């Protein structure tokens, strides 16, 4: 259970943040008054169908203080009416890269057993007579994997789709990944079906190599590159003999390989499997296809991490580490009782590991712990 007093302190932290940063938020939302807003309050209740005017935005934020704050990717004529009556006028093209949707990435988690205020870290499937909690760890390694997908996404948006860098807004999501918002007139009116084509172009969902019309089509080009480079991955799908045959065809020409695969049913279906499994960009497709999706508001705070959904310049992406760079400016430190906290880099340095002890940590790390029931009793430091 999260204690009432801690929740009030967290809420105050959010309120103060929003007081100082409301202008930044307003300036980050294109056509604010045509959006639907939604939020989860500090009691955990979701509220939707809110429309806001620019001049009342700050007051509204001060009065309501969202724990998690969203706006529609869509623009509506009547944003505050129910879905039927909103009258959809268009939507941003958005992409979501989230560690939950990345294959081959096992989120590191710690399972703890909390019993009468005592904490025990559980190994394997140990019994727990108290409260058993799984804690997903935020870690740099995960963010780097998500970043690889993000870079692939951006490359395709720029090179294949000719979207200008200034129209591609990259954000750290505040949680476990990245969001990309494309704010370009040309894309706003696209319906779900058109967006599905764009999504499939990225993920290669439903690919059949036999239908490829052009040896320069992206999935085939990627496959050709993989055939020359990705030994280990190839061996998970193909036999060595098969790889050898395909490589020899490729030596003759790309066209030769494609024609060969068209006639070979077994190799074609193995290639399809390989392409979707290893070569597509791993985005959460539903977010792109849904034209009335809610997405976290830029520069809002994530309720479970205390981190900012922060915009990242493309040139700075390489250096960006959310745990260091997405903590709010003017972060302060607090003291709290920590049940458990693994060793973690946060804001300005290494913290932890802590077990059943008091410690001084950045406020956002305190929020991260409190919201997971791993800490309580926040006090001024």
């Amino acid at each position, binding site marked *: 259970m999260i204690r009432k007093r801690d929740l009030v302190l967290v809420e105050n932290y959010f309120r103060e943040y929003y007081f100082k940063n409301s202008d930044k938020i307003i300036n980050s939302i294109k056509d604010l008054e045509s959006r639907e807003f939604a939020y989860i309050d500090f009691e955990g209740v979701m509220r939707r169908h809110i429309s806001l005017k620019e001049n009342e935005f700050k007051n509204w934020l001060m009065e309501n203080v969202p724990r998690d704050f969203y706006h529609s990717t869509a623009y509506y004529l009547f944003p505050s009416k*129910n*879905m*039927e*009556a909103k*009258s*959809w006028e268009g939507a941003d093209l958005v992409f979501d890269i989230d560690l939950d949707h990345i294959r081959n990435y096992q989120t590191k988690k710690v399972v703890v057993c909390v019993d009468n205020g005592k904490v025990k870290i559980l190994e394997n499937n140990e019994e727990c007579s108290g409260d058993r909690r799984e804690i997903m760890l935020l870690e740099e390694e995960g963010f780097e994997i998500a970043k690889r997908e993000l870079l692939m996404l951006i490359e395709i948006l720029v*090179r*294949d*789709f*000719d*979207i200008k860098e200034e129209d591609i807004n990259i954000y750290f999501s505040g949680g476990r990944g990245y969001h990309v918002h494309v704010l370009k007139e*040309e*894309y706003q009116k*696209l*319906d*779900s*079906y*058109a967006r*599905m*084509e*764009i999504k*499939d*172009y990225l993920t*290669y969902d*439903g*690919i*059949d190599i036999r*239908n*490829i*019309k*052009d040896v*320069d*089509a*992206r*999935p085939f080009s990627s496959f050709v590159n993989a055939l020359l480079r990705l030994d280990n991955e190839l061996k998970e799908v193909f036999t060595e003999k098969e790889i050898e045959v395909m490589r020899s065809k490729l030596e003759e020409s790309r066209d030769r390989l494609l024609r060969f695969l068209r006639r070979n049913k077994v190799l074609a279906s193995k290639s399809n499997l390989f392409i979707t499994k290893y070569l597509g960009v791993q985005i959460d497709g*539903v977010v792109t*296809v*849904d*034209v*009335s999706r809610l997405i976290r508001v830029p520069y809002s705070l994530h309720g479970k991490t205390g981190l900012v959904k922060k915009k990242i310049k493309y040139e700075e992406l390489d250096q960006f580490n959310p745990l260091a760079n997405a903590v709010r400016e003017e972060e302060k430190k607090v003291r709290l009782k920590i049940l458990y906290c693994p060793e973690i880099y946060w804001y300005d340095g290494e913290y932890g590991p802590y077990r059943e002890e008091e410690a001084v940590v950045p406020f956002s790390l305190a929020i991260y712990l409190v919201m997971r029931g791993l800490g309580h009793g926040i006090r001024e430091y």
Partner: protein
Amino acid sequence: MNVYISEEIRWAAKYPFDSRSRELLELIAYDVSEYTEDDLRFLLDKAYERASKALDHKYRLMWDNDYQELVTFYLALLIIRGVEEDYIYRVFSDTEARRAYDLLREEEDKNIISIANNLGFQVEAEKNGKFRLSYVEFIKVSRDLSAIHWKLYNFKVESGRVYLNKRNLARLCSQRIKEVIYEMIKNIPSVPEFIQSYSNRLKKDKEKMLRKIEKYDFSDMGEERFPPCIKWLMSRIGGGLSHPGRFTLVTFLHRIGYDTEDIINIFRRVPDFNERLTRYQVEHILGMKGSRIEYSVPSCKKIKSYGFCFPDEDCRYIRHPLQYLIKLKKREKHD
């Protein structure tokens, strides 16, 4: 006749739907009453033949007289219009679009580009017999070519352009041409009496075909026999539907015979029902307002992408929610 005119007529005979041809059509073919005169009546007979054959999906790619080829197209449009049957309009448009496809495939590059541009595609020629088209344009049109190999990832895409060969481009054009010809028919306000007699004859000739349309008459299908996606949408009306959800439901209900009032009545189940707004939205989707395009019911593939496809046993091997009804109807007939 000088060379210039004869070239223009040649063009119009091949592509009578093209904006370049329309002027000529107006100039030489629009006073239809003269075709009742004995020496021109044979043109009406030829037009009848063209219309009738088109309904059997037949067309010709060679002809002796460009002028006659052009005029028979226009007269055939009128005859088709007089049948007053949407299904017939569509079959005719489809056949004529196929004819155009066959001609375009053999066309010179600059000519196919001209046709494509007039249809609203910004196409540029590329080397190696390829053509470039904005990929956004491409995904807007390719949706109606349900075949899976029209997915964007099967083509080369670079700098916002998708690369097509002549055949692919001709196919895309023919999709748009089909819509253009259909609109041409729909936009004819009424048909003169002497044409109507040909229309009536055609109607009688194609009785069997028209009876087949009854197969697609679903007015006796109750809600309990709707496909699961539609049932799901019906059950959720009260809680509000997404835009694609509302769109799917309205087009579906309309297609199986609900009129605007019936559909609006169904939306009365919404707690904060607003009649004026609902009417506006429904009429918009049905093409009575706004763009005037009458949308068709989305395919299973689209419904899947919208996220409300919950297939049951009868959904197997079907690609369109209406096929679900045909399947049920067929089975009930046999039982």
